[in-house]
């Protein structure tokens, strides 16, 4: 189809293909930067690596305005309730990229203070290994997420996110009933999950 007769042309496609095409090329990243990976992420945003090539340069520090969270760095137990709150506040459909080994599994910090992987408390779509990952790896992670978005059905994320909101309600209910802080409630829920053999709390 040449450009000349584009005006008269009719293109047929599936709705989800169009929506997904739009979604994947206009991701709004929220950098949840806690540690070293956030410094490396600056390189991804800066001139040499330039994430805007992938349509994801409009960084928003408010979760309400973004739909892709990059968890950059170690998440400690103290930070866990904050991460859950911020994930809950993000605009739907929301995606999470766990950047670096600390976010993915606790990494080298197998200690009393560190959460052993954020996938225990929030859903994660793409894991990027490395300590810290090179900027190319982070870009590759974003590209992998784009591939994933391309293949999604429109209703698929609804179910995914509903499970998280249910767990958040359970957490709030537990906090209200027992007077625990958010961190203690998450700990209780993790212990419950461990007792039933479930890998996550959502």
């Amino acid at each position: 189809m040449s450009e000349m007769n584009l005006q008269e042309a009719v293109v047929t496609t599936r709705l989800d293909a169009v929506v997904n095409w739009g979604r994947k090329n206009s991701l709004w990243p929220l950098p949840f930067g806690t540690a070293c990976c956030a410094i490396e992420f600056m390189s991804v945003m800066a001139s040499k690596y330039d994430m805007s090539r992938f349509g994801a340069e409009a960084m928003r520090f408010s979760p309400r305005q973004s739909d892709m969270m990059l968890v950059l760095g170690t998440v400690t137990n103290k930070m866990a309730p904050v991460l859950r709150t911020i994930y809950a506040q993000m605009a739907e459909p929301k995606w999470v990229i766990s950047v670096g080994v600390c976010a993915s599994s606790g990494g080298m910090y197998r200690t009393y203070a560190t959460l052993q992987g954020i996938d225990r408390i929030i859903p994660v779509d793409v894991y990027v290994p490395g300590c810290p990952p090179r900027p190319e790896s982070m870009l590759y992670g974003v590209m992998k997420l784009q591939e994933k978005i391309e293949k999604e059905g429109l209703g698929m994320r609804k179910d995914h996110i509903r499970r998280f909101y249910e767990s958040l309600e359970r957490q709030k209910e537990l906090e209200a009933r027992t007077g625990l802080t958010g961190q203690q409630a998450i700990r209780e829920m993790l212990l419950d999950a461990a007792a039933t053999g479930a890998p996550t709390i959502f």
Partner: protein
Amino acid sequence: MDSIAITRQMLDGDRMIVNMGPSHPVTHGTLRIVLELEGELIMKATPEMGYLHRGVEKLGENLSYNQFIPLTDRLDYCSSILNNVGYAVAVEKLLGIQDPPRSRVIRVMVSELARIADHIVCLGINAVDIGAFTAFLYLFKQRETIYDLFEMAAGQRMHTSFTRVGGLMRDLPPEFLPLFDRFMEECPAAIDELETLLTRNPIWHDRTKGVGAMSIEDAVNWGYTGPCLRASGLAQDLRVAQPYLDYETYDFDIPVGTTGDVFDRYLVRVEEMRQSLRILAQAKRKLAEVGPGPVIVEDYKIALPPKEKVYTRMESLIHHFKLIMHGIEMPVGEVYSSTEAANGELGFYIVSDGGKNPYRIRVRPPCLPIFSSFDEKVRGRLIADAVAELGAMNVIAGELDR
């Protein structure tokens, strides 16, 4: 999240409570500051930290001396090599040894490169926080070159783990010096560019002058070190005051400010980058003078013997086995060793009971005392000043919380 309880009493007054952090763009990591405001004026700021407390000191007690080096990378992650060098110098002090001359020159080279990279991040991000995005983009080109150099030397861009107890992991590759020369040519121009963007920029002046000023007495009492202390006017630099790595043989000046405000700290950091370039030029000449040679001590009770010897000689194999299984034979004792990191005095206090692992390892983070004075510095000022102040303090959560 709930550790600073916002009480009924606090809410009842005329003051408004605003929570900055722990996930906030200006907090460079994870800090939380609870601000009590009257209009735009900050009446009280309560900083809280620990959101990146990962238990590094506890881990250090469970790792051998060489295994701790990767953890030092992740303290001040903007300038990892400075931490590597500081730690290696501390362990060498405990052992009572010195690394070979070539290693010392290379350590100085990579340290000064890391100092420039750290100042680039600090200044670039401070400007971004205030609203000047361009300087960040201009400067990061140089930082990428520094990271390329680190990658050549150590194989990793950021977390280099370049030093070992008694020397370095390996010598510089032959490709290092050509790129280094290019960097030395380009970097002064980039710093000039930064200065044209900011130094005489009236908006930058309005936002930074007079913010967070501090006298020398107060700065010393608060435990300030590094560029923040020098901006107040005291020329205290451990590279000159208590030289290590033969810094006394390099010719460079210590820039000092007068008031200690954000603008002075900016000027001090810019000038320190220039002085680092001076040191780098001298270090390159020195490297040629020293010539090729070992970069790690040839005492196989401390450093691993070369692989070809391990495969061919019985004695080297035994040394290798002993070092890996039983670690370095450490004397019983305690040392405190400090080096001038990009933020100030980075100290390592190591207590050894003669075992494979340190009995206690303490990291003296330069930015903890600086951050603890945050309330005093922003009280009675505007929220916008708090943002400028936090950026100029260069609080790195990794070393703050450990």
